[in-house]
């Protein structure tokens, strides 16, 4: 937004450029203070906190079920991933086992969320680099997924569908047909976007050999997810530490060697194909397992069915206590993590035996990944910084919480 000439040196004048919290790249309110020498960035300092909401503090004030409503608003491009990670943590704390049908529904929604996030990512990344039509195609496809969210959870984005112990309610009748149709047609759209971008000389010029990070730097910065897979490290939480019965699913981990922006692009495109495969497998497993319960049934930790509450005084008391105070997990701590579209999204929940958590720490992958941005960008051109920011795929809601 403004520029101040800082000092005049032999090589040239250094200019301080503020890529302010409001900028057209749609990644959110990130402020980058760049010191430029001509077009080269000599120093880059990210300033975050423009969206800091105090979600961790707010989690200490609400009970475990109410907290689920806060988290989809954190990483708002992949809402159900956050709910899933939190519910995994609380289920570990209590020691619940989720019924199989709920697990398969969770897997399907998890992969659908991953596709949603990657579609938005490719839309905005390509838009930043100049390919404006990809944005429209990607967002149009994303609308189909938002319709799916609405069918299942009742709301387009922030559904609070995944609950502690399972999912809120079973999937509606048209779910199987709709999702199957989507999953079979989705690879064609990814093919189209591939056709528009992958061999496109402008795109390859702008993304190859840009933003390279080597293996040691990546590990030291704690980067996980597509950034690590683009450097050649075989790391995918769905395979390494499977959750939600992922070991029953068959898919490949996308790996590349180059470690630049183009490699990350290829990794994420590959992940979209794999997600469609997993969704189809999930639908088959749902059909196989047949109708069943989707929520853990336990007198203390599960929400009671409202019809039963009117029959028995004990159940009525449980209903009252559950919805006013909330359930009380045993004291302890647990860490639940998922392979989110951006990396490892984890929730560290500490309980002291009360209805409200003592502490909830959210390990947001975008927060960790953004710390590596100065390393990627220093010494490179200003236009490359835009490509690098897009390749990290940050969501400021997760960075700032």
């Amino acid at each position: 937004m403004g520029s101040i000439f800082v000092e005049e040196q032999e090589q040239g004048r250094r200019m301080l450029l503020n890529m302010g919290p409001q900028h057209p790249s749609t990644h959110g309110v990130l402020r980058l203070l760049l010191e430029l020498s001509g077009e080269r960035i000599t120093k880059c300092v990210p300033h975050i906190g423009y969206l800091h909401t105090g979600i961790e503090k707010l989690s200490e004030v609400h009970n475990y079920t109410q907290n689920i409503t806060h988290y989809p608003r954190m990483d708002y491009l992949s809402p159900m991933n956050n709910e899933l990670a939190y519910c995994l943590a609380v289920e570990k704390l209590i020691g619940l086992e989720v019924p199989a049908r709920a697990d398969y529904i969770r897997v399907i929604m998890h992969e659908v969320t991953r596709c949603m996030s990657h579609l938005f990512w490719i839309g905005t990344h390509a838009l930043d680099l100049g390919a404006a039509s990809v944005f429209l195609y990607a967002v149009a496809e994303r609308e189909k997924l938002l319709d799916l969210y609405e069918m299942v959870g009742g709301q387009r984005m922030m559904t609070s569908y995944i609950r502690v112990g399972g999912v809120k309610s079973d999937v509606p009748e048209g779910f199987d047909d709709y999702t199957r149709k989507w999953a079979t047609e989705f690879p064609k759209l990814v093919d189209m976007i591939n056709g528009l971008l992958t061999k496109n000389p402008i795109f390859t010029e702008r993304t190859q050999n840009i933003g390279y990070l080597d293996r040691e730097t990546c590990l030291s910065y704690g980067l996980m997810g597509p950034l690590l897979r683009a450097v050649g490290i075989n790391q995918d939480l769905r395979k390494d530490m499977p959750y939600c019965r992922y070991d029953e699913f068959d898919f490949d981990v996308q790996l590349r060697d180059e470690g630049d922006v183009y490699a990350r692009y290829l990794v994420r495109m590959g992940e979209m194909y794999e997600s469609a495969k997993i969704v189809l497998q999930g639908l088959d497993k749902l059909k196989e397992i047949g109708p069943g319960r989707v929520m853990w049934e336990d007198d203390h930790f599960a929400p009671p069915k409202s019809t039963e509450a009117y029959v028995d005084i004990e159940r009525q008391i449980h209903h009252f206590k559950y919805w006013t105070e909330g359930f009380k997990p045993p004291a302890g701590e647990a860490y639940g993590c998922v392979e989110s579209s951006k990396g490892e999204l984890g929730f560290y929940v500490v309980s002291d035996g009360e209805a409200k958590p003592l502490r909830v720490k959210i390990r947001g992958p975008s927060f960790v990944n953004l710390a590596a941005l100065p390393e990627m960008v220093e010494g490179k051109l200003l236009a490359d910084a835009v490509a690098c920011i897009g390749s990290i795929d940050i969501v400021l809601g997760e960075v700032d919480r």
Partner: protein
Amino acid sequence: MNMTFDEQKKLAEEVLGRMAVRVWVENGSVIAMVDTRYIIKALTDLRDHDETQLDVLTFMTAVDYTPREPRFTMVYELYSTSLRFRVRVQCQLADTGNENELPEIDSVSSVYRTAEWHERECYDLMGITFTGHPDLRRILLPENWDGHPLRKEYPFDGKRTWKPGCNVIDSQRMEGDLGL
């Protein structure tokens, strides 16, 4: 995850040796409580030892256990991408009795680069200083914010309101009073 929890626990005990106060398994994680003075050495050993290779610091935070003494527990979650297991390292930190002094602990940013931002966040929200940190300043809140919100005594809706442009004394007004 190829090893069972007991094997992981034994491995952690072996590598940490006398630095570990207690190692136990809870809710699917191996947790090691180490002596606060040796935190840098403990993390370095866990990272470099051939049998653990815990090369990623997943996150680092502090938990405020008021009114228990010592007040804070620092939590470091480590993950090994090659051996695929996790260890959580904890150490306890007592609050200084003085309100104007913040408790101090060694910074582990020399061991893992990612700790730079995590420690800044800890300083910002919990008020814990890290000696040896290259650039310790607030990260999520404005630079002139008063207080450390994640501490238990700070109200969640912020009775100490900060308004842009006003000085710290004015910021002690109640939230409902907008100066009208």
